[in-house]
């Protein structure tokens, strides 16, 4: 199964990555090569096999739900590209 140019544009939009037509055309060839590699998996008989999501299996460990201090707001804000009064600034989303 081969991807088309419109597939690439659709995936790029879903992934929130801007691609020009030229980039998309270049990427298309590379992605199709990679998918040719991936296609090998389709011929493997995996009936009755449990998917392996994690090497050691088991369930996710949970911690006690206790309050811990997170009093480092100013440090976390230091890396913000745009901020005001301790808030992250973004373009207007609600009219």
């Amino acid at each position, binding site marked *: 199964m081969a*991807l088309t140019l419109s*597939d*690439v544009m659709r*995936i*790029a*939009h*879903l*992934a*929130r*990555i*801007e*691609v020009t037509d030229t980039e998309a055309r270049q*990427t298309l060839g*590379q*992605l199709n*090569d*990679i*998918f*040719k*590699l*991936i*296609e*090998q*998996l*389709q011929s*493997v008989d*995996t009936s009755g*096999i*449990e*998917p*392996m*999501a*994690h*090497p*050691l299996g088991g369930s*996710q*460990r949970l*911690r006690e739900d206790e309050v811990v201090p997170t009093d*480092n707001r100013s*440090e*976390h804000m*230091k*890396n*913000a*590209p*745009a901020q005001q009064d301790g808030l*992250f600034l*973004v*373009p207007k*989303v609600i009219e």
Partner: protein
Amino acid sequence: MFEKSVAELGRALKAREISAVELARVFLDRIDRHKDLNAFLDVRADVTLAQARAADARLAKGDATPLTGVPVAHKDIFVTRDFPSTASSRILEGYMSPFDATVVERLKDAGMVALGKLNCDEFAMGSSNENSHYGNVLNPWDRTAVPGGSSGGSAAAVAARIAPAATATDTGGSIREPAAFSGVTGIKPTYGRASRWGMIAFASSLDQAGIMTRSAEDAALIFNAMLGFDPKDSTSVERDAEDYTRSLNLDLKGLRLGVPKEFFGKGLHADVEKAVREALAEYVKLGARLVDISLPNAALGIPVYYVIAPAECSSNLSRFDGVRYGHRAGNYADLVDMIKKSRSEGFGPEPKRRILIGTYVLSHGYYDAYYIQAQKVRRIIADEFQRAFRECDLIAGPVTTSVAFGFGEKAADPVAMYLSDLYTIPGSLAGIPGMSIPCGFGAKNRPVGLQLMANYFDEARLLGAAHRYQQATDWHLRVPPAAKE
């Protein structure tokens, strides 16, 4: 002094033959003189010397560990409070973390002195270090060759003796492959042994931190401080602390070394095969017994990996949106446009490719066919290792099909680059520990690595087998031309 191992440096510091500050200056000076290798992305002498002074104070008080005052450099995948953390990406240029990664913190607590941050492939995605936004790292053995990736800076720094040890990470081979290409010792532990807290995530079910050193003994010493349960990492394994040096004097007599026939098939270059076979013969001389084993579906590791790793990466990298941290585009129309442009400008070609693959295999209609199917084949491969370990104690074979290749040789063809990890990916998918140790030289006098793999939690035996080989041979003591400069 720079030629000494971590163990030797620790002893020299304890005996007060040299101070931590003097030692830090030796390595800072070497880093400066080897700038052309481009192994380091950030060095801050004031930070390093302050840590060295603190180490000297501990040594004076008699409150030192075997690592106190010994320098270490960190792959720029670990976040650090004192140095910028970029993952070699433009999107994190200048990012200052409010905290240290657990691995960094533990080595700091043991008294190790941080030399700075090491170059790598962007978000640890690559096998040659050619995907760094901050330029190529040169292989100290041959400046026309790649050092391997993604931990290329770590490998080059240890090989050129500009750092006695370097942290690294392995998702599909990113410790073992550069260790092999650059002629150093590199080990990844069992998945879950090293905390992933503060390790910039690429593929969370595979990412595992490890270490590069000159010898297995040094790696064991550092593992004692570096590994262990961390409540902050939800996949950290809860087990008692271990002494990873306890089996260094392992008796190799009767050790069953499994040799997978699939690792010696088509694609393996003759020079690499020769060096690896000689290493196996050395093990036989030392008392080990070779056992033929089979990992029939090992080669499917590559397609499995290139579904699972991109899927997890597309999810992990969605956090980079130009809102809370990282690069934000200069001009945009609205919020979605801002996010798209910020990501498009901030990510290099390889992360973009993997995000697109991952987004596709996780999208509606393809999830079962690709992602779930890959997870099923992942289990088939992991089960094959378990069957193999019923017949052998450790597995041995090549790390790579060839010695280090030249710059640009595979950069234009992602699939050719992906095939570089043929022998390292299966162990990563299973989550077992694996290492590469120097075992000779191949074409153009470039280093060859021997891969050793162990079953889950069997690192001490793995390190012991490597150490015994290093006592009997001197490949790990060979020094590249660049180290002498």
